[in-house]
C-alpha cells in the first residue's frame, strides 16, 4: 500500500525528528517571520542541531529547567526594584529559556551595518555641535534639529575629551516578514540591558549545556573588559590605567543591578554623586585615604540630572561642576552629554542621509519608513490614517506615549489626532511591521508558542572605531499577539546566540 501523501504544510519526517517532541505542536504565525522555524514547521537549517537538543526534552522536563533558571536568577539577585513597594520588593525580569539564534551570515551583515550606522551618528553629533555642515547643505531641515528638546546649544563648540561621543550604543532592531532586519530606534544616551545579556547567557549555559555546545556560539563575557578598555582609551590622557568609575543614581534606580554589575565585572568603583566633587575643574572621589582624581566617568545618571549648575537645578543626583570639568577637557563623560539630538525619533528618518553625507556609503541596514509630523504633508497623511499606523511621541521611550493604530479604539485615535495637530513636532508615525516571532515557553500552559521579539545589540566605540558585541538582548512580548516588548510594559527577555 502506498504511503498517503503529506499535506503541503506538514513538516517532512526528518524535519519532525530534528525539532524534537518539545516543538512538535509549534506553529509559527502565518505571514510572520519566525526566528527558529520555517513556515512548514521545520527548524531553520543552521539551527537544527541546537533545536534538536532543546526539543528532546519533554514539556515537564523543560518546565523544570525553566524553573531552575528562574531560581538561579533570583538567588543571584539579577533583579530590578519595584518602585511602588516600601518593603523593597524585587523581581526578576521575565526570562524565557528558549534562546533566539542568529546565523553567522545574518550576523556579519548586522555587524557591518551597525558599525556603519554608529560611525555616521557620531559624525552627525560632532557636526551638529560643531560646524553644522549637514544643516548648511540642507540635508536635514535646520529647524527640525535646532528645535529638538535634546539639542543642547550651550554645548556647541566643545570637543569631548578623547574625541568620542557615543561610547556605548544600543540599536533596536526588528525583523520584517521577509526576514530583513530593520532599525527601529537608536539609543545613544544611556542604553541599558547589557547585564541581562551576560546573565541570561550564564544561566542558559548552565541549564542547556548540550544545546549550547552543539550550536557553537560566540561568547559575550568579554564585554566588561572591552568596555573598560574602550572607556580608558577615551580618557583625557589616553593612558590605559586611567582612573575609571561608574556613576549611578543609587540603589533605588530600577537599573541599579546593571550599574553594580558593570562596576563589579570591570573591577572599578561604583560611585554615587555624593562620592564625587569638583575642585579646580577636576573631578575627585572621596576615599578613606582622602580625595583621588577621576579621569573617566561612565555615567548612568540621565543628562538632565548630571550637573545642577548646567541642567536641572533641582537635581539631587548631580555633581555640581562636572560639566565645567568636561568642557575643560579634564574628565571624559560616557556617553557625552547632548547625544539625545541624534536618537530623537524625528531625526531617525534622516540617518540614511547622514550615512551617505558623512561616509559616502550606501546604508547597509534598512529602517522603518517614517512619517515626520513636523512636515505638513506627512502630518495630514498621519491624522487621516491613524488606524493603519503606529504613532510615537519623539521624546518618550519604553513604549510610553504611543498609539498602536490597528489595535486602537476610536476614542484613542481621536485623542491622538488632537495631540498631533496641536504639536506636530512631537510626533512621528510608522506602518506597523509584523515583528518576527520566536518560540517562547508559556508557563501557565506548559507549551511553546510564537511570541514577537526584537533585538538590541550593543556597540562600543573608542578612538579606533566601533566594536559590536556578538550577541544582544532579545526582548519578547509575553502576551499573545502583542507587539510591545518593553520590559516596562511586561516584556521578557531571552538569551541571543550568535553562531560562529
Amino acid at each position, binding site marked *: 500500500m502506498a504511503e498517503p501523501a503529506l499535506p503541503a504544510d506538514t513538516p517532512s519526517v526528518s524535519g519532525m525528528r530534528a525539532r524534537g517532541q518539545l516543538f512538535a505542536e509549534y506553529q509559527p504565525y502565518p505571514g510572520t517571520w519566525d526566528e527558529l522555524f520555517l513556515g512548514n514547521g521545520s527548524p531553520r537549517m543552521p539551527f537544527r542541531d541546537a533545536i534538536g537538543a532543546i526539543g528532546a526534552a519533554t514539556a515537564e522536563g523543560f518546565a523544570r529547567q525553566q524553573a531552575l533558571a528562574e531560581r538561579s536568577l533570583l538567588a543571584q539577585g539579577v533583579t530590578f526594584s519595584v518602585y511602588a513597594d516600601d518593603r523593597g520588593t524585587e523581581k526578576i525580569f521575565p526570562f524565557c529559556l528558549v534562546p533566539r539564534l542568529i546565523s553567522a551570515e545574518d550576523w556579519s551583515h548586522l555587524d557591518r551595518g551597525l558599525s556603519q550606522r554608529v560611525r555616521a551618528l557620531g559624525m552627525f553629533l560632532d557636526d551638529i555641535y560643531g560646524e553644522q555642515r549637514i544643516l548648511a547643505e540642507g540635508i536635514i531641515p535646520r529647524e527640525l534639529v535646532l528645535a529638538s528638546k535634546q539639542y543642547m546649544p550651550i554645548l556647541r563648540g566643545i570637543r569631548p575629551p578623547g574625541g568620542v561621543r557615543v561610547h556605548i550604543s544600543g540599536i533596536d532592531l526588528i525583523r520584517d516578514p521577509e526576514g530583513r532586519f530593520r532599525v527601529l530606534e537608536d539609543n545613544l544616551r544611556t542604553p541599558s540591558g547589557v547585564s541581562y545579556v551576560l546573565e541570561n547567557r550564564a544561566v542558559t549555559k548552565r541549564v542547556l549545556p548540550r544545546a549550547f555546545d552543539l550550536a557553537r556560539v560566540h561568547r559575550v563575557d568579554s564585554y566588561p573588559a572591552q568596555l573598560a578598555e574602550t572607556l580608558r582609551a577615551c580618557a583625557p590622557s589616553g593612558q590605559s590605567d586611567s582612573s575609571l568609575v561608574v556613576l549611578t543614581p543609587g540603589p533605588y534606580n530600577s537599573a541599579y543591578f546593571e550599574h553594580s554589575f558593570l*562596576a563589579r565585572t570591570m573591577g572599578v568603583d561604583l560611585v554615587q554623586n555624593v*562620592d564625587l566633587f569638583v575642585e579646580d575643574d577636576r573631578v575627585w572621589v572621596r576615599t*578613606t585615604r582622602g580625595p583621588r582624581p577621576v579621569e573617566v566617568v561612565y555615567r548612568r545618571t540621565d543628562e538632565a540630572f548630571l550637573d545642577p549648575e548646567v541642567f536641572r537645578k533641582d537635581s539631587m543626583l548631580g555633581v555640581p561642576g562636572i560639566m565645567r570639568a568636561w568642557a575643560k577637557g579634564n574628565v571624559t563623560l560616557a556617553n557625552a552629554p547632548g547625544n539625545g539630538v541624534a536618537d530623537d525619533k524625528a531625526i531617525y528618518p534622516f540617518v540614511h542621509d547622514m550615512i551617505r553625507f558623512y561616509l559616502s556609503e550606501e546604508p547597509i541596514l534598512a529602517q522603518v519608513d517614517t512619517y515626520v509630523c513636523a512636515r505638513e504633508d506627512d502630518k495630514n497623511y498621519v491624522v487621516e490614517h491613524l488606524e493603519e499606523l503606529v504613532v510615537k511621541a519623539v521624546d518618550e521611550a519604553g513604549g510610553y506615549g504611543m498609539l498602536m493604530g490597528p489595535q486602537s479604539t476610536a476614542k484613542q485615535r481621536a485623542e491622538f489626532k488632537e495631540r498631533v495637530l496641536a504639536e506636530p513636532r512631537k510626533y512621528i508615525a510608522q506602518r506597523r511591521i509584523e515583528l518576527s516571532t520566536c518560540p517562547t515557553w508559556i508557563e501557565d500552559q506548559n507549551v511553546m508558542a510564537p511570541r514577537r521579539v526584537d533585538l538590541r545589540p550593543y556597540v562600543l566605540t573608542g578612538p579606533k572605531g566601533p566594536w559590536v558585541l556578538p550577541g544582544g538582548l532579545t526582548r519578547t512580548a509575553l502576551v499573545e499577539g502583542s507587539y510591545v516588548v518593553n520590559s516596562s510594559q511586561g516584556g521578557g527577555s531571552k538569551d541571543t546566540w550568535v553562531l560562529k
Partner: protein
Amino acid sequence: MISRVADHCFWLGRYLERAENTARVLPVTLSLTLDSELTARQSWRPVIVVSGVESSFVGRYGEAATEDGEQVQRYMTWERDNLTSIRSSINAVRENARSIREVLSLDVFQTVNELWLWMNGDAAEELWEADREGFYRHIRDACLLVLGTVRNTMLHDLPLDFLWMGVVLERASQTARILDVQFQNEHGLRLAQLPAADAVGAQSAVDDAVWLALLRACSGLEAFMQRFGGRVGGDAVARFLVLEPKHPRAIRFCVHEGRERFARIRPPEVAGLPGARSWQRLCALDDRLAATESLDDVHALLTHVVDEVADISNEIGGELLGYGAPAGQSQSQ
C-alpha cells in the same frame, strides 16, 4: 576606597553579627528556662534589655509580656519595627550588600541574598513553627557561611577589613552586654536567696545553668572547659569571655582584632591619614583590656566596653566613613 562603600561594608559586618548573635541568645535562653530555677521573667527580660529595646517592647506589649517567651522570641526574630530583630538585621545586611555588590564576590552576595530570600519566605516561618532550635541554627549557619565566604573568596583588602572590623566591634559589644545583664541577674538572684542559708546547693545549680548557657551562646563551652578544667563559676566564665585573648568571641580577642584591622585600613606609620582619634581610642581600649588582671568591678568594665565601642564607631564614621561629608548618610544602631 570610597568612604560610602566603606560605610556599607562596616555596617554589613555589624548587622550580620547582630543577626547571628540574636540567633544565639534566643535558643540558649529557651533552653535556660527549661534547666534552671530562674523564673520566666528572669530568663527573658535580659534578652530585651541587652538589645536596648526594653521600653519599646514594654510600651507595645505591656510589662507582663517580658515573661512571655514566645512573645519575646517573636519580637526579637520577626518584628519589622524592631530594628534589632533578626529579620530587620538580615534585611539591613542585604540592603548594605546590594548597595556595594561591586566590591563583594558573587559568592558573598549570593549567600547573603539566599539568607534574605529564605528569611522573607514561607520556609523560614514553617521551620520556626516546627523546629525552633533548627531555625536559629539555620540562621547562625547562614551567617557563618557568609563570614567564611567573605574570608575565602574576597581580596583581603580594605572592603574585607572594614567588614571584619564591623563584625568584631559588634561582637565585643554584644558579648559585653549579655555578660553584664547576666551578672546583674545573678546578683539579684543571690540577694533573693540569701535568707535561705541551707539552699547553697540549689543556688550553685542555678548559677551553673546560667553560666553554661552563656558559654553555649558564645560557642565557648569547649574552649572554656579546656582553659579552666571544668570548674564552672561566674568569675571564671567572666574572665574567659572578657579577657581570653584566643577565643574569637571573647571581648579581648574582638577588640584586639579590631585594632589590627584598623591598622591595615590606616597604617599608623603613614603620616597625614584621617582616623587619628579613632585609632587612639581603639588602642586605649585594647591596652586597658590587655592590662586588666582582676575583675573586681565587672559591671564598670563591661559598661566601659559598650560605651567605648559606640564612641569608636562614631569616630570612625566621622573620620573615615564620610558622615561629615555633604549629603553623607549614616546608619545608626
